[in-house]
């Protein structure tokens, strides 16, 4: 047993008065002192204390939760805060895919018939190509209605905001608006075809996959026709290494149909002679028309 003289005066407890009026120490006092001394040597957040306090807090939380009123109550708050919105669970159905395809066809149609693309020597070809989208929209409308869906008459707002408006604006300010217009039209047809191709594994009806790919084939044909307006003749079939070290534009750029974004250089050239690059993306869940 350790002697009390070993403690510092500051920690030494007051002696308890005995029956005879004399101060005396008891065994408990000594034990308490030993314990206090140990506490001073430990860190203020011991593991044991943490576990004990944490357990007590958790127990209190459980008790409070059990006693809580299950009815929702308005919680007082300061300042302006929007209410959290719980979004609906949604599932990708054939109708959703068809409606989304309609919105993409509409987006391409609007771009081709815009005053930016359907202008000058491109006016005829753009308006002719737009007829392909009109045919596709009519076919899609029938497919949507046959499945008790509601047809879409507006361009895909998210894709329009993400790249559609920017691409058209760049063509508008370009020094070569007609050449850039053809490049954008080609990219749009490629995106339309890729959209259908990407929908194939998500479509439940095998027959509908075939119908969608019929529309994709039509878009691909239009893409090839535009590509050969840009790079005419047999030379336009194959990409070569250009003077700038990049592959030249061609009608048959990939062996298999791509689902990647379509990169297209549009607008005014900068000091280095390079145009701005725009990535045309196919729709994803956040741009589906649910």
């Amino acid at each position, binding site marked *: 047993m350790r002697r009390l003289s070993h403690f510092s005066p500051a920690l030494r407890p007051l002696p308890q008065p005995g029956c005879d009026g004399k101060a005396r120490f008891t065994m408990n006092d000594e034990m308490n002192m030993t314990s206090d001394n140990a506490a001073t040597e430990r860190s203020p957040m011991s593991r044991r204390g943490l576990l004990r306090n944490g357990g007590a807090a958790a127990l209190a939380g459980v008790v409070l939760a059990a006693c809580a009123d299950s009815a929702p109550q308005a919680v007082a708050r300061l300042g302006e805060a929007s209410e959290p919105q719980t979004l609906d669970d949604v599932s*990708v159905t054939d109708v959703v895919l068809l409606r989304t395809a309609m919105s993409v066809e509409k987006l391409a149609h609007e771009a081709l018939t815009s005053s930016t693309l359907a202008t000058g020597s491109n006016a005829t070809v753009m308006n002719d190509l737009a007829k*392909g989208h009109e045919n596709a929209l009519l076919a899609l409308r029938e497919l949507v209605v046959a499945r008790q869906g509601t047809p879409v008459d507006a361009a895909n707002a998210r894709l329009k905001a993400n790249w559609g408006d920017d691409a058209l604006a760049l063509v508008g300010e370009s020094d070569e608006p007609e050449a850039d217009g053809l490049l954008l039209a080609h990219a749009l047809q490629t995106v339309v075809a890729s959209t259908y191709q990407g929908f194939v*594994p998500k479509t439940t009806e095998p027959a509908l996959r075939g119908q969608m790919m019929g529309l994709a084939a039509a878009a691909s044909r239009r893409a090839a*026709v535009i590509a050969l307006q840009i790079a005419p003749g047999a030379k336009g079939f194959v990409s070569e290494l250009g003077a700038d070290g990049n592959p030249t534009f061609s009608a048959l750029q990939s062996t*298999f149909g791509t689902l990647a974004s379509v990169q297209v250089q549009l607008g005014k050239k900068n000091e280095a002679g390079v145009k701005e690059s725009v990535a045309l993306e196919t729709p994803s869940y956040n741009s589906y028309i649910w």
Partner: protein
Amino acid sequence: MDTHDELPTETGTSRRRLIASLLAGGTAAAFAPVLAGTARAATGPDLPKRDAADNESLNAAVAREAALVATYAAVVEKTSGADDKAAMKVIHDHHLAYKQALVGFLGPDLAPFDANPLAAPTGSVAAVAGEFSRLEDETVQIHIGILAGLKGTDAASLVASIITVEARHAAALALLSGAAPLAAAGL
């Protein structure tokens, strides 16, 4: 003489860290349902990836692609102009890739097939391009018909990726043969 005290090395998994990790993990688990409640859960249909019933259709697609490979191989050999030869060669290579992809997909389910040319046109590329455009268009229609009957999504995706480019072949060859752009586009 080295008088530095050796400091105890801190282990990567001390009890204090373990407790802290448990507390952090518990907090994350408690908040997960709250965060999940604000997320949009998009689910797709549960479709079969592969179906043995598709093998017969896919074997037919292999036979068609093998025939096109043989057709273009003959033309590439006879073509002299560099650009014309390159154009025919790239289409030949595409069909070869399609055949190989389909053969690889079928694996042991591949059936024997003939690889006879579908046509033996003679003359310049511009002269034969019209006939080849018709063959490509026919192939697109055949593949669309096959796709419309496929149950497995993997096979459907593969055939779809072939259709997209073969439709380009058809239009490009039509233009090369002298067709008007509108007609080449199928409008």
